[in-house]
């Protein structure tokens, strides 16, 4: 396997994370609790979908031929998607979405900061652009964590339930397979294990401040990177891909 293929697959992974999470966030559009949050949350969704496009475009260039960004987004089935499971879980209630977003953004920011130093110039450039967005997302997310965690009895209970439910999905964020190890060795991919402790400290600190407790979950689940997804991804793709499936090659 050539390095070019490795980089393409790595870019698709990062693109898949962004597209699937962005789609989940976009499900709040017109359904957020109030107008200001509706616009804010939609901005976040757009940031993520835009990020997916940058990664897919790069992967498409590496693949060559007729492959485009749309090939990745619209013509693959669930088994071919390699996003982290955390990204595909249903949006749940607002607390659930806030916690998922915070867990992910607390991972995305150091990940992008490290990716800026990649030997691959294109990945480094995408990371530099996305880092600014993630800095803002994390700031927003942290405040929602505090506001709802240390809010009313009801909001606190919903936040704690979300934290407990999502915790087992966070281990996958820091696991590295052979593909990523090869790219880490050649200075192209990010080794998430390097900031795993910082992530944990950061998250634990915010949970404490938000009067939420750190779960002592004895379970963890993985599989997204190898295409073993939850039952939810298929439904998400059915909606996301409908137009291109019904009218292949359709353009705006």
């Amino acid at each position: 396997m050539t390095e070019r293929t490795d980089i393409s697959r790595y870019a698709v992974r990062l693109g898949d994370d962004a597209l699937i999470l962005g789609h989940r966030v976009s499900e709040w559009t017109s359904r957020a609790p109030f107008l200001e949050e509706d616009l804010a949350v939609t901005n976040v969704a757009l940031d993520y979908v835009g990020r997916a496009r940058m990664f897919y475009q790069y992967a498409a260039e590496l693949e060559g031929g007729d492959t485009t960004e749309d090939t990745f987004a619209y013509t693959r089935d669930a088994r071919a998607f390699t996003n982290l499971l955390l990204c595909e879980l249903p949006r749940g209630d607002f607390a659930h979405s806030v916690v998922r977003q915070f867990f992910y953004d607390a991972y995305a920011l150091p990940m992008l900061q490290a990716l800026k130093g990649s030997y691959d110039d294109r990945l480094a450039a995408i990371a530099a652009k996305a880092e600014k967005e993630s800095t803002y997302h994390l700031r927003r997310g942290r405040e929602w964590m505090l506001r709802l965690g240390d809010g009313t009895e009801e909001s606190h209970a919903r936040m704690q339930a979300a934290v407990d439910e999502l915790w087992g999905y966070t281990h996958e964020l820091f696991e590295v397979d052979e593909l990523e190890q090869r790219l880490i060795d050649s200075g192209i991919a990010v080794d998430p294990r390097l900031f795993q402790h910082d992530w944990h400290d950061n998250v634990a600190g915010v949970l404490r401040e938000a009067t939420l407790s750190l779960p002592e979950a004895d379970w963890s689940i993985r599989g997204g990177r190898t295409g073993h997804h939850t039952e939810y991804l298929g439904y998400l793709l059915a909606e996301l891909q409908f137009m291109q499936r019904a009218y292949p090659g359709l353009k705006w």
Partner: protein
Amino acid sequence: MSDHMQLYEVFIRSRRGLDHKHVGSLHADDPEQALEYARDVYTRRSEGVSIWVVASKDITASQESDCESFYDPLDDKPYRHASMYEMPEGVDSL
């Protein structure tokens, strides 16, 4: 929208060197959140380089009924306007 949300007025400076201008208002829980929503609601198309938010309740505003006592007395004091001066040559506006 929750009951305790407050109204904030939003001021944006569009370019360095210009003044902040009032652009509208929004609801938020606290000033920090108001600032972030101002970014999301009012600067989506790169409208600004600086944002101020002020709780609307903290603004003391003149009333319509103040007009007579506030502004009418100025009507007969034309010497306060610069309109009597002749513009120096080459100056378009003062």
